[in-house]
């Protein structure tokens, strides 16, 4: 038996893993997007609590960001995956089901990535809100805007503009973190490479191509983010 070449391995021929790897890459992007969206929600809530909350919600948000930025992401994924399975099995027993019911890996992974990135996103949003000039808020009040209008027309757009670079960083972190979700068995890029490496005995080729795909995704999305940053800061005068 002859060994297929590297190009055969990653192509779409009979020995090719190209389509499988592409599907894995798509799954990676989906997990990252879902996790990022969840992180945005947690980040917005956390920043809101830290900026406008009372002492209780402030300390809750403070604990959340300290804890989630101080412990490894892998541990959080384990918590959601195994903890979620235990919880679901317990609920299942109430309804007469028996045995172990596993928690969907995609959901556990996206939640775990979302909760950890939410802690970083909180700080990004909070810092961006601080950068909004107080004169602009005063002007909005002076114009007679209601709190909702003030938020939707002045605070939210300006905060998002200042937050863009930080949000780009969080996206890159989330993308790389999504590789850890492979331990839950979700067939994303890294898991697919593991499967390929296992069945062909060519681990280096598969992990190498996986690394290159990750690099391509992060470079492309980085370029997109930079383009977005340029577009949304058109109105800003540069010194």
């Amino acid at each position, binding site marked *: 038996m002859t060994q297929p070449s590297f190009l055969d391995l990653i192509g779409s021929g009979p020995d090719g893993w190209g389509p499988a790897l592409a599907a894995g890459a798509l799954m990676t992007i989906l997990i990252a997007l879902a996790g990022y969206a969840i992180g945005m929600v947690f980040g917005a809530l956390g920043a809101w609590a830290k900026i406008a909350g009372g002492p209780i919600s402030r300390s809750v948000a403070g604990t959340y960001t300290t804890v989630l930025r101080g412990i*490894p992401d892998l541990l959080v994924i384990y918590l959601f995956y195994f*903890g979620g399975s235990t919880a679901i099995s317990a609920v299942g027993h109430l309804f007469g089901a028996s045995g172990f019911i596993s928690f969907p890996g995609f959901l556990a992974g996206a939640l775990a990535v979302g909760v950890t990135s939410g802690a970083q996103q909180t700080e990004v949003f909070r810092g961006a809100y601080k950068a909004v000039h107080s004169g602009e808020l005063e002007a909005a009040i002076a114009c007679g805007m209601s709190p909702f209008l003030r938020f939707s027309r002045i605070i939210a757009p300006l905060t998002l503009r200042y937050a863009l670079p930080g949000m780009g960083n969080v996206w890159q972190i989330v993308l790389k973190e999504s590789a850890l979700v492979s331990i839950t068995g979700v067939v994303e890029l890294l898991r697919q490479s593991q499967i390929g490496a296992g069945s062909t005995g060519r681990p280096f080729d598969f*992990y190498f191509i996986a690394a290159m795909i990750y690099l391509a995704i*992060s470079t492309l999305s980085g370029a997109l983010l930079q383009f977005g940053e340029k577009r949304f800061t058109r109105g800003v005068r540069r010194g």
Partner: protein
Amino acid sequence: MDFVFLYETFITLISAIPMTLQLAATSVALGTVLALGLALCRVSGIAPLNWLARAYIFIFRGTPLLVQIFLIYYGLSQFRGVRRSMFWFILRDPYWCAIIALMLCTAAYSAEIIRGGLLSVPHGQVEAGRACGMSRFLVFRRIVIPLAIRQSLPAYSNEIISMVKATSLASIITIMEITGVAAKLISETYRAIEVFIVAGAIYLAINFLLTRIVVLIEYRLSPHLRQAPALQPVAAGEMR
């Protein structure tokens, strides 16, 4: 809450703390040396060196650490040349593979931190050193490096903490550090939340201590930013 179980978990996990600290300390120490080399390449002004360092940093910051670990631990064994080489006794050991991967990864991140520190040294200080007759190396050793270290310490503490967190990935290649032991406990007892609380608390304590230590070092290194201690008042008669 089952305090007996929490206590037992705590006792089990404590035995894994040295492994986590060992992984983090070794890879940070080795990574710093590599990072200094990379940062010097970046600021050297020699185009090929600069591009080499840039490519290295781009690749290692753009790919997940777990992929790098797999590439080194599982990937390299694909080549017969590697299996027969004198380095095989290192490369077949998950402990050293984890350290190599962590070191290569942290070097890419810290190189940029160190570069920022090097660039922050005011040019006048270098000129003053040269004017005093110091050689380039002496200026670098006595002026540039101390100032750069002080400047980059805050960012460096973030990097150290993220390395402590990153050591958890070593558990995936069978190393029994805190997360590895925690995962084993979870799969044995199915009590994810309790184990998570204990393991998380240990990581938080480690990171809290590290942050304090770095703040202390920073305080010691920047006496010029503090008010000078008041001099002892001297009685007029003792004046000479």
